[in-house]
């Protein structure tokens, strides 16, 4: 006998209901949430960077002892800005604290999506702050030009410095035997001798990928040649004679003295080149510098020293700190502010300094653990000069336009000055459209 099953209205409704119930049950009951420690919950969003390793390894456990339940969510640098901005603007409330890259502060500030931390009880006028670092937490900025619409607004502390960071020079002490090279010409000349002696493969290494990476690598060269980015009316002046000389040197001389694949180099390849013993010198933030003495992370432990960035006119580095902001949509706002107050206290900053990071409070600079050679050099660099990037909410676009043109010139190995002219025109056009003038 043949069995036949008819599709009836009743069977379809029963089946549909059954499926809906089963799905609901599976999603609500089937996947138990992992148990979390009880405490004052703070969800921290950060981009992956070696500069945060001491914080993760030493400070988070201390915070737990203080009763904070820290949830540390890391993402790749390239996606965090847009992800957090969308979170803050939509009020999604996925984070309590963002550890921003400092050039992003104006974008978040102009959109008015971060809490006023001054009103929350954090004192921005504390003399113990490193002045240039706390300045970056204000929107609109307390010093320098302001973008239209914010000329008369009162500066508000929307972010506080979290981990101090600035570019310094890392060099091979067996190649630069007389100490840190003082000028770019010396980096190249001595580096070539190191190559000839078979100690290294190339004198210098840097990041060449378009956008933020190449601009970050070019910036200290640009500053050391005496360049300025904008005038006080937001007109791009980076294509001045000094700027062009720096770009020509960067895409010409520096390219000829680095790895052949530098056009595609980002921080991972750059770090591998210096830690792997291929490169003679590098300008870098603390992320890779912190690995310089660890034989597990470098093939040339003991051969890497730190110094102030080389100069042509001045020895000025780019400052780029981790800076913390609390979104207005933070689900645990009070906990975040309490955590920040504890974190920026002189005592916790001293612990951060001991752990190897560059602190954000002046009093903690002297408390570096014995053998930490980076922090004293960072202080020297601060004294020699370190400048943040221009405080405009449109920095991401400016950096993109400039980065593309610099990257094209780097591929060609020439035409740095012309690239700056093209980029300056594009930046001017863009800022005109955005109502800057």
């Amino acid at each position, binding site marked *: 006998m043949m069995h036949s099953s008819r599709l009836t*209205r009743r069977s379809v409704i029963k089946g549909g209901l059954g499926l809906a119930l089963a799905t609901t049950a599976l999603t609500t009951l089937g996947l138990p949430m992992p148990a979390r420690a009880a405490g004052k919950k703070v969800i921290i969003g950060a981009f992956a960077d070696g500069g945060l390793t001491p914080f993760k390894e030493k400070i988070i456990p201390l915070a737990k002892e203080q009763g904070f339940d820290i949830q540390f969510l890391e993402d790749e640098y*390239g996606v965090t*800005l*847009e992800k957090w*901005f*969308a979170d803050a*603007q939509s009020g999604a409330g996925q984070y309590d604290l963002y550890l921003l890259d400092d050039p992003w502060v104006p*974008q978040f500030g*102009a*959109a*008015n999506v971060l809490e006023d931390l001054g009103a929350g009880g954090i004192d921005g006028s504390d003399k113990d702050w490193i002045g240039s670092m706390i300045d970056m937490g204000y929107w609109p900025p307390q010093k320098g030009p302001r973008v239209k619409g914010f000329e008369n607004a009162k500066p508000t502390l929307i972010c506080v410095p979290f981990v101090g960071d600035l570019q310094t020079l890392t060099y091979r002490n067996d190649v630069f035997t007389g100490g840190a090279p003082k000028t770019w010409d010396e980096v190249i000349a001595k580096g070539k001798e190191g190559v000839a002696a078979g100690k290294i493969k190339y004198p210098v290494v840097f990041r*060449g*990928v*378009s*956008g933020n990476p190449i601009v970050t690598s070019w910036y200290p060269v640009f500053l050391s040649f005496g360049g300025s980015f904008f005038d006080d009316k937001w007109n791009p002046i980076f294509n001045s004679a000094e700027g062009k000389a720096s770009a020509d040197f960067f895409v010409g001389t520096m390219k000829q003295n680095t*790895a*052949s*694949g*530098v*056009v*595609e*180099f980002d921080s991972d*390849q750059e770090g*591998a*080149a210096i830690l792997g013993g291929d490169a003679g010198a590098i300008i870098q933030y603390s992320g890779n510098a912190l690995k310089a003495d660890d034989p597990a992370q470098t093939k040339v432990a003991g051969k890497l020293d730190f110094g102030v960035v080389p100069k042509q006119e001045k020895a000025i580095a780019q400052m780029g700190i981790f800076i913390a902001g609390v979104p207005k949509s933070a689900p645990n706002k009070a906990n975040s502010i309490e955590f920040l107050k504890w974190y920026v206290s002189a005592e916790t900053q001293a612990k951060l300094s001991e752990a190897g990071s560059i602190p954000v409070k002046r009093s903690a600079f002297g408390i570096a653990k014995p053998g930490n050679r980076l922090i004293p050099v960072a202080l020297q660099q601060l004294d020699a000069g370190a400048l943040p990037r221009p405080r405009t*909410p*449109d920095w*991401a*676009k400016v950096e*993109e336009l400039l980065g*593309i043109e610099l*990257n*094209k010139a780097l*591929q060609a190995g020439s035409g740095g000055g012309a690239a700056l002219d093209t980029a300056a025109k594009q930046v001017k056009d863009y800022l005109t459209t*955005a*109502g800057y003038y």
Partner: protein
Amino acid sequence: MQTGMQARKYRLQGAGLDLALPYLMLAPGLMVVLGVLVYPLWDGLRASTRAYRYGSPVADVGFHNYVQLWSDAQFLNSLWVTVKFVALSVSIEAVLGFALALFCLHEFRGIRLLRTVLIIPMVITPVVVAILFRLIYASDAGMLTALSEAMGGGGVQILGNPLNAFIGLVVLDVWEWTPLMFLILLAGLQSLPHEPFEAARVDGAGSWRVFADLTFPMMRPVLAIAIVLRTIDAFGTFDQVFVLTRGGPGEATRLISIYGYDTAFKFQQTGYAAALFVTIGLVVLALAFSAIRLLRRIDAS
């Protein structure tokens, strides 16, 4: 009397349920479509007519964003790169996919395993594919460089050279998506009637004649569908480029999807990005309609 009225009432209720049931059953689906398709589309269209500053709308600008697109050198470059990428990738995939489908049509020992192996690239997550190719292409520690150095050569520059990076991206896409073409075309070939082919063989037609006069003409509708589907899909390629090159070096691999993403999310020009995506949507729609018209013409002939 009472019983008769009740029976009539039940009949009417039954009829009402019969009338309403299809709509009731459609309602959840309709609500989902309205919520996740129609509303975002309408919202996107509305956003495309506005100017945004710092992530918020500040003014209605009508069609200004659409007009501005055509004088934006970066948009035009991205569009050109995308068109080149789609044309090259889809053409190669169609030819390779067809060749593989014809080959795998034959039954021989191991054919099932071969068919399975051939579709593996398609089922790997695009991001993983991009990471794999990054490991192959990287000039410092990539597989190609390692091979070249083992043979006494130097580093191989793929991602640092505009032309090589573009070709590298096409190769990645071809590797990943030829299996889709292959699968669609193999299904098409397997569904062709046997009689014309047997008749041709009886008449002594050679392989090329059979392919040119029978297989290809009969497969044209399937091929057209496969090409249209892949073209629409290729226009939206994002993950692989995002991981592999981020659009670089320079702007050599900056597809329209990457430019649109940056414009919308990184630079917060929401209205302009919406206009960009609507324009691209219309271009793809126009392509799809043209392909469908072409199909109908083929069917009619």
